[in-house]
């Protein structure tokens, strides 16, 4: 049984999706979806905690490079565990308020959600380049439909814009994989990296990497390619934006790492192509532009979405260093930001369900009325800034260490400066919640009391982010092993 874990964590959500549609029961569909995500999470955690080296799973018994190989290393198991856990949190509970945008369409909603989870998990576990494309499109197509299920009509245009950009990105990835296959004659990660040495001076190889990097860059929302993200995150149903904010860009980031490290090799990407010099300025612009835009957003979810663009800047900055310490910081920040941002989106969902509107000024003075939700938002916001005692600090500290080890203190200064911008946008929400008088003429609240279902998942995630900040050696040690095994002393 345990040797089938890599395929199980993809198959369980994938096969539950049609089940949900066939059963056609609104309440049962949510239970099945939650169970499927939880099972997938159990599989991922079991694998992550018991594995001693990278696990290879030959699909259908065909040996790797002839057949399709699933390959889970420490980093893969870590990302898979995060994705499936966050999926479970995002859909398990929630109130009538947060779920009412999908009333009457539950079966299709949960089916699309499960497909999305299956696609993202598949991307993480596969060791085959073409499988990456297939799973990428499975997750993307289901994401478009999920975003379109948002309450307002603007969700439709957001979804269609995402479809245009996402398909361009996906097709770029497909072209990159094709050119890579043309040069190496194989789609298997290990075989590609063994053969790419012989062809790495050829221009087709350069172009293959460029297409893969730009295609994944669109899906990852690297700075100039981020236009789809704010619309999609702020218009999607709440469960979806909480889930996507924590996972979609993270999986793409992990995939970019895999392309750099496992397929093309660090030496080629950073020494021959100078990818780091290209990625670094974009990351810096993202850090500042994303956070600056977040400061001026009138709605809570758009603020969080723009903050995500800034946070993606830290992720790509960590990768652009091209060192093991950088990779370590990137993987840590991936997990830290996934937990924090999902918690914040869930809290935002709970607030919006209460006031019936996502404009920030509607939250005026609600800090006293909803003390737990507001406290959760403050703690999550502190983790977003990177205050000591939260998991955000652990990852930002690792990033600072990596930058200083590379001998670039001005980068460390820029990281701190952009964190100050995060202080501004987080404090903007805190100011509205705690220091403003309630609106005298506010329309009545949609609901009087917050259901426990709306704050329990968010509260647990906030506790996790604070707990991992206090016991910081738990994530640090695992991720250090992951970065080391992924990097393998490449440089």
């Amino acid at each position: 049984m345990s040797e089938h874990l890599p395929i199980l964590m993809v198959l369980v959500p994938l096969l539950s999706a049609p089940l949900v549609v066939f059963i056609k029961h609104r309440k049962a569909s949510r239970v099945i979806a939650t169970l499927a995500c939880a099972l997938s999470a159990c599989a991922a955690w079991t694998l992550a905690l018991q594995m001693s080296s990278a696990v290879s799973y030959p699909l259908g018994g065909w040996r790797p490079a002839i057949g399709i190989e699933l390959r889970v290393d420490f980093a893969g198991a870590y990302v898979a565990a995060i994705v499936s856990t966050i999926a479970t949190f995002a859909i398990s509970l929630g109130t009538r308020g947060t779920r009412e945008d999908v009333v009457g369409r539950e079966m299709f909603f949960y089916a699309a959600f499960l497909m999305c989870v299956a696609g993202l998990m598949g991307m993480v576990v596969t060791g085959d380049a073409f499988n990456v494309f297939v799973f990428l499109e499975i997750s993307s197509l289901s994401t478009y439909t999920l975003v379109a299920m948002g309450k307002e009509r603007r969700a439709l245009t957001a979804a269609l814009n995402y479809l245009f950009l996402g398909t361009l990105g996906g097709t770029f990835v497909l072209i990159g994989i094709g050119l890579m296959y043309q040069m190496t004659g194989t789609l298997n990660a290990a075989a590609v990296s063994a053969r790419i040495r012989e062809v790495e001076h050829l221009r087709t190889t350069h172009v293959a990497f460029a297409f893969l990097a730009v295609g994944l860059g669109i899906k990852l929302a690297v700075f100039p390619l981020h236009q789809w993200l704010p619309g999609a995150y702020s218009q999607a149903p709440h469960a979806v934006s909480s889930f996507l904010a924590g996972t979609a860009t993270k999986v793409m980031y992990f995939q970019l790492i895999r392309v750099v490290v496992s397929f093309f090799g660090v030496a080629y990407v950073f020494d021959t192509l100078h990818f780091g010099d290209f990625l670094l300025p974009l990351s810096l612009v993202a850090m500042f532009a994303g956070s600056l835009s977040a400061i001026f957003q009138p709605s809570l979810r758009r603020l969080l979405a723009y903050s995500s663009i800034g946070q993606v800047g830290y992720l790509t900055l960590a990768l652009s260093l091209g060192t093991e310490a950088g990779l370590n910081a990137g993987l840590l920040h991936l997990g830290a930001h996934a937990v924090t941002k999902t918690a914040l989106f869930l809290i935002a969902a709970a607030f919006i369900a209460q006031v019936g509107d996502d404009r920030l000024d509607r939250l005026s003075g609600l800090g006293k009325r909803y003390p737990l939700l507001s406290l959760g938002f403050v703690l999550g916001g502190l983790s977003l800034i990177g205050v000591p005692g939260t998991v955000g600090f652990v990852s930002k500290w690792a990033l600072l260490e990596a930058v200083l080890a590379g001998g670039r203190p001005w980068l460390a200064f820029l990281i701190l400066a952009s964190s100050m911008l995060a202080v501004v946008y987080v404090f903007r929400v805190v100011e509205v919640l705690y220091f403003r008088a309630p609106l005298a003429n506010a329309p009545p609240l949609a609901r009087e009391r917050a259901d426990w279902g709306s704050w329990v998942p968010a509260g647990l995630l906030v506790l996790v982010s604070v707990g991992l900040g206090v016991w910081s050696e738990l994530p640090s040690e695992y991720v250090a092993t992951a970065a080391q095994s992924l990097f393998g002393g490449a440089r």
Partner: protein
Amino acid sequence: MTLPNVWNYWAVVVLMMVGLYIVIAKPNYVKKLMGLSLFQVSVIMLYVSMGRVTGGTAPIYILDDGAPRPFVLYTNPVPHVLMLTAIVVGIATTAVGLALVVRIREAYGSSEEDVVAELDRREVEAANALAAQRAAESDASSATAAHAGASHEEHA
């Protein structure tokens, strides 16, 4: 590498750029989706071209008197097989896109990007204006309330 030998790669580039241009330049959502399909189809041609072997046949061992031929020069079938999946993906994308266009047409009464964007912009402006008005009214009423000696808590 004369032009007649590699014309298919040129065709790939031309198709791809025509598709990309339509996606970027045309304001109509349906036309954009057609451009997107063209863009995706060009990749199919790229893959099929790279699998081609000059003088190669289908990858089937021809049986002479029941014995398999020892050597057959055949075209690489893997890219063709991969493209079956890419075709499915392309159809699914177009289907989802067209479904969204239908929904947009129902919701906005138009499938032109600029019209829809203008409607969206107005909606956002109206919401902003409403919020500003609400804030102003709130300030005014709390000012009068403060004047009358009432505390904010009573308003909550």
